[in-house]
C-alpha cells in the first residue's frame, strides 16, 4: 500500500479498516543468501539497501527482540554532516544526502526536519577548530556558516549572553542539520525492506555463527539453524558478544549514553543547539518535548540506564547555557549501549572469515549514519569491496596506525571519547 494524504483521507472516511501490516512476520526459511544479524536502524537500512540497490538475492534480518529496539529507538535524533576528517567527512556527507531523499525513497514520513544545528564555541581556540571543521564541510560540498556572537544572538536570543560561565563567542551553523523521528526511520526501512522481499524475523536471537574452514556457513538461532552464504553483523550494543561467536575480539567497549526528554511544551526552541564547553545538545521534538543529551556515563555498561552524576551534569550545562528552560520538567530518561571504538569512528569491514562482515563502533553518533551505514554495508556485502565513502572504516587501522579518525583529538585509545 502506498502512503499518501489521499490514502489517509480515504481510510479516514471508511473507518480506517483498510490499513495493512507495514511488514510481515515470516517464520525463517532454512537458508538465505544473506543474513543480517541485528534489526536496528543500521541492520534494517542494510537490508533495505541490499534489496533496493545491490542484489535480488534472498535476504533475512534476524532480530533478537523487536526491530528498532536498540539505539535507533533511544537517541536524541540529531542528523548532521559536520565531520572534518577524511573518511568521516565524505561518509556523513553521503548520509545526509540519503536523509534528504529518504522519505521519498521509503514512502514513509520519518519527519526529517532540517531545523539547523548551531555548534556553539566559547574560546578563540574553539572558533579556530570550528572554522577548520566548517571549511572541510564546504570542501565536501556541504553547508557551514561561521557565526559571531551577535549572529548567534539573532537566532538563539534565549541563551545567557551575560552571566554564563563560558561566554558564547559564536557558532558553526549547519543549516542542513536537524532531527528526525527516530523510530520512524527503523520502521520506514523495515517496511521498505519487507516490500522488497526481505524477511524480517523478530524474537530470533543468534546464538552461534557457523564457520567451516574459514568460510561462514550460517547461523544458529533461537528459532533453529539457518544457512547463509554471507552474514553481516550489525549489532551495536552487542558487537563484542556477536563477534566473539566468530572468534573475534573487536576494538569496542560498551558504555551507556543517557538521553532525556521533558514534558511537552509549546514551541520554544527551533534549532538544534550544542554547547561547546560541556557535553550538552538539545532540540525540541514535534510533540513539544525538549530532547537533550550529553556525555556518556563513562564506565563500561550494558545496563541501558545511567546514573545521576551524568544526568545532573548534563542539566547543569542546560542551566548555564539557556536558563529559560528551568521550568521545563524532565519527564523521562533512558540509556542506550554505545559501541565505543578507540578513535571514535566506526568500522565497516570484512572479517578474517570469508563471507562474514562487520559493522560496529558507531560510538554515540550512529543515528545520523543509519542511511549511509546501510548503503555502504550493503555495498560491501554485495560486492565484496568497500563503498567509496566508507573505505577508511577499516578494522586494521588500529593495528597499522593508518587512517585513524580521532575527530575529537582526545586519543585513539579507549574511553577518551
Amino acid at each position: 500500500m502506498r502512503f499518501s494524504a489521499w490514502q489517509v483521507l480515504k481510510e479516514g472516511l471508511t473507518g480506517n479498516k483498510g490499513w495493512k501490516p507495514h511488514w510481515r512476520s515470516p517464520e525463517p526459511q532454512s537458508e538465505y543468501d544473506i543474513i543480517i544479524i541485528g534489526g536496528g536502524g543500521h541492520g534494517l537500512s542494510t537490508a533495505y539497501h541490499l534489496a533496493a540497490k545491490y542484489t535480488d538475492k534472498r535476504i533475512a534480518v534476524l532480530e533478537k527482540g523487536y526491530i528498532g529496539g536498540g539505539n535507533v529507538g533511544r537517541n536524541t535524533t540529531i542528523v548532521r554532516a559536520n565531520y572534518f576528517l577524511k573518511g568521516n567527512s565524505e561518509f556523513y556527507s553521503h548520509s545526509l544526502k540519503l536523509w534528504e531523499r529518504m522519505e521519498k525513497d521509503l514512502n514513509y514520513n520519518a519527519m526529517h526536519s532540517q531545523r539547523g544545528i548551531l555548534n556553539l564555541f566559547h574560546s578563540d581556540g574553539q572558533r579556530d577548530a570550528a572554522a577548520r571543521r566548517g571549511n572541510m564541510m564546504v570542501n565536501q560540498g556541504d553547508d557551514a556558516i561561521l557565526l559571531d556572537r551577535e549572529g548567534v544572538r539573532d537566532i538563539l536570543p534565549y541563551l545567557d549572553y551575560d552571566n554564563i560561565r563560558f561566554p558564547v563567542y559564536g557558532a558553526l551553523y549547519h543549516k542542513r542539520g536537524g532531527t528526525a523521528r527516530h523510530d520512524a526511520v527503523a520502521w520506514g526501512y523495515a517496511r521498505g525492506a519487507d516490500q522488497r522481499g526481505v524477511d524480517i524475523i523478530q524474537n530470533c536471537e543468534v546464538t552461534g555463527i557457523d564457520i567451516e574452514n574459514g568460510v561462514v556457513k550460517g547461523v544458529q538461532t533461537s528459532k533453529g539453524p539457518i544457512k547463509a552464504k554471507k552474514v553481516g553483523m550489525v549489532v551495536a550494543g552487542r558487537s563484542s558478544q556477536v563477534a566473539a561467536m566468530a572468534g573475534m575480539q573487536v576494538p569496542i567497549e560498551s558504555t551507556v549514553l543517557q538521553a532525556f526528554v521533558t514534558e511537552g511544551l509549546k514551541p520554544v526552541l527551533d534549532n538544534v543547539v550544542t554547547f561547546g564547553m560541556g557535553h550538552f545538545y538539545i532540540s525540541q521534538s514535534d510533540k513539544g518535548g525538549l530532547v537533550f543529551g550529553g556525555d556518556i556515563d563513562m564506565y563500561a555498561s550494558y545496563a541501558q540506564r545511567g546514573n545521576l552524576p551524568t544526568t545532573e551534569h548534563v542539566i547543569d550545562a542546560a542551566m548555564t547555557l539557556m536558563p529559560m528552560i528551568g521550568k521545563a520538567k524532565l519527564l523521562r530518561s533512558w540509556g542506550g549501549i554505545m559501541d565505543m571504538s578507540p578513535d571514535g569512528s566506526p568500522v565497516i569491514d570484512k572479517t578474517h572469515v570469508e563471507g562474514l562482515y562487520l559493522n560496529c563502533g558507531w560510538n554515540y553518533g550512529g543515528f545520523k549514519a543509519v542511511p549511509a551505514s546501510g548503503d555502504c554495508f550493503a555495498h560491501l556485502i554485495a560486492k565484496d569491496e568497500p563503498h567509496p565513502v566508507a573505505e577508511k572504516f577499516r578494522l586494521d587501522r588500529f593495528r597499522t596506525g593508518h587512517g585513524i579518525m580521532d575527530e575529537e583529538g582526545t586519543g585513539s585509545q579507549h574511553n577518551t571519547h
Partner: protein
Amino acid sequence: MRIKCPLCGERDRREFYYKGAAIDLARPAPDAGDVAWDDYIHNRENPAGRTKDLWQHEMGCSAWLVVERNTVTHEIYGVELAENVKRGMK
C-alpha cells in the same frame, strides 16, 4: 553509583575517574609485536557481565583501583589497589 575505595571508604561515583578494562595493567614488552600491542591498546573482551576495570579515586586519595563489577547490573563485587594487583601479576 558508589565505590568503596580501599583507603577512603565508600564514596560517590563523582569522586572517581574511569579508565577502562584492567587489561591496561598488562602492558606488553616493547618487542611483543603489533598483534599483542593491538590487543593491549584496542581489542577488548568487553564482557556483558562480570569484569574488572580501572578507576582512580581522583577526588580523594588518587589511588588507582581495580574494580570488579558487573556491566549489566552495576553490582560491585570488590575493589583492590591497582598497585597491589600489579605486584601480584609478576
